[in-house]
């Protein structure tokens, strides 16, 4: 590829006036500008017709976020549980309970599904009035998953049950400041040039 006279670049970049160029260089500038104008003119300015499609998606609630919200709501709501059991099985159940009580158990977490795990979010924000976590698991909605600082030591915590997988997230401090979690498993650059944290939720089902 041949390099071209640097004055052509300077004129096209607006660093020098094109009138200052000799005619043969001005012709090259015109040629390049005409080529660019052709590329632009092939698109009529009356719109691309994307509005109905995009607005339909905008009006539709995001499915994954809704699923997570439903799950969180289910965990937060009291549930009525009814057992129907044969007397013979009730004896076996009683024996199992006695065994479990007598045998020292390892620390047990909440019973989760095969494809669920627990994500813990911890961040130190001594001057914050509120901290939330927003991420791909709740469709990046702020204000849905609050962290708590019960002992007022500036360390905010939240524990969330999520389907297994890797999720991007950030902390939202005082409703407006987006802060990555530098203690996260990993950090990744997002589409907006910022670093998102990654949490990997593994199954804790036993």
């Amino acid at each position, binding site marked *: 590829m041949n390099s071209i006279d640097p004055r052509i670049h300077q004129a096209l970049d607006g660093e020098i006036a094109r009138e200052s160029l000799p005619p043969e260089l001005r012709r090259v500038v015109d040629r390049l500008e005409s080529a660019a104008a052709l590329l632009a003119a092939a698109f009529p300015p009356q719109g691309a017709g*994307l509005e109905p499609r995009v607005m339909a998606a905008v009006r539709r609630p995001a499915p994954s976020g809704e699923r997570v919200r439903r799950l969180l709501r289910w965990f937060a709501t009291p549930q009525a549980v009814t057992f129907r059991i044969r007397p013979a099985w009730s004896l076996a159940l009683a024996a199992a309970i006695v065994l479990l009580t007598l045998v020292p158990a390892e620390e047990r977490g909440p019973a989760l599904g095969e494809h669920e795990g627990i994500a813990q979010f911890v961040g130190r924000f001594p001057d914050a009035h509120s901290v939330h976590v927003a991420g791909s698991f709740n469709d990046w909605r702020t204000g849905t998953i609050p962290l708590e600082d019960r002992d007022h030591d500036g360390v905010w915590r939240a524990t969330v049950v999520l389907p297994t997988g890797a999720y991007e997230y950030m902390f939202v401090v005082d409703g407006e400041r*987006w802060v990555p979690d530098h203690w996260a498993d990993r950090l990744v650059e997002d589409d907006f040039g910022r670093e998102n944290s990654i949490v990997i939720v593994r199954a804790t089902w036993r």
Partner: protein
Amino acid sequence: MRGNPSDTEVVARVLGGDREAFGLVIRRYETGLLRFATRMLGSRDVAADAVAEGLVRAYRHLASCRDPSRLRTWLYRIVANRCKSYLSRRGVGDVPLEEAPPVADSTDNEASLERAEQLALVAQALARLSPDKREAFVLKHVEGLSYQEMAAVTGERIPTLKMRVHRAREALLQVLEDHA
């Protein structure tokens, strides 16, 4: 909303709960974004998918747009990243150029046919550039962004972008001269 609200006003309306106001953002920027994505991907249909996905993503993350007065460059950044994602999924940086040049209709004269041929030639030369150079050239000369705005879109330094634009110009000029 009154006549021609600024981007900052529109973003505030959307974040305040007026979801339908996002339609104004779409109408304002879809043509430029689609033009940019088509030049990057070589197909208007694929570009429409990339832009639509980008706009939905922009709506969902609108609260994280730190400077709504620069909404335009923020949108270009999202769509540019969608395009890169499509290109990397395709495995190579070149574009298929499935889009045919404009077809002449019965009223076309010789000048418009020549214009269509020129467009096909330029589009092919553009498609042969690496995605980085193609992106830089299109942002600069087709979308008319300043180098500063291009830096905000691409995350690259201005000298790097200038170098890419210069190389792209040289490659295009070479093709144009070969076919002169």
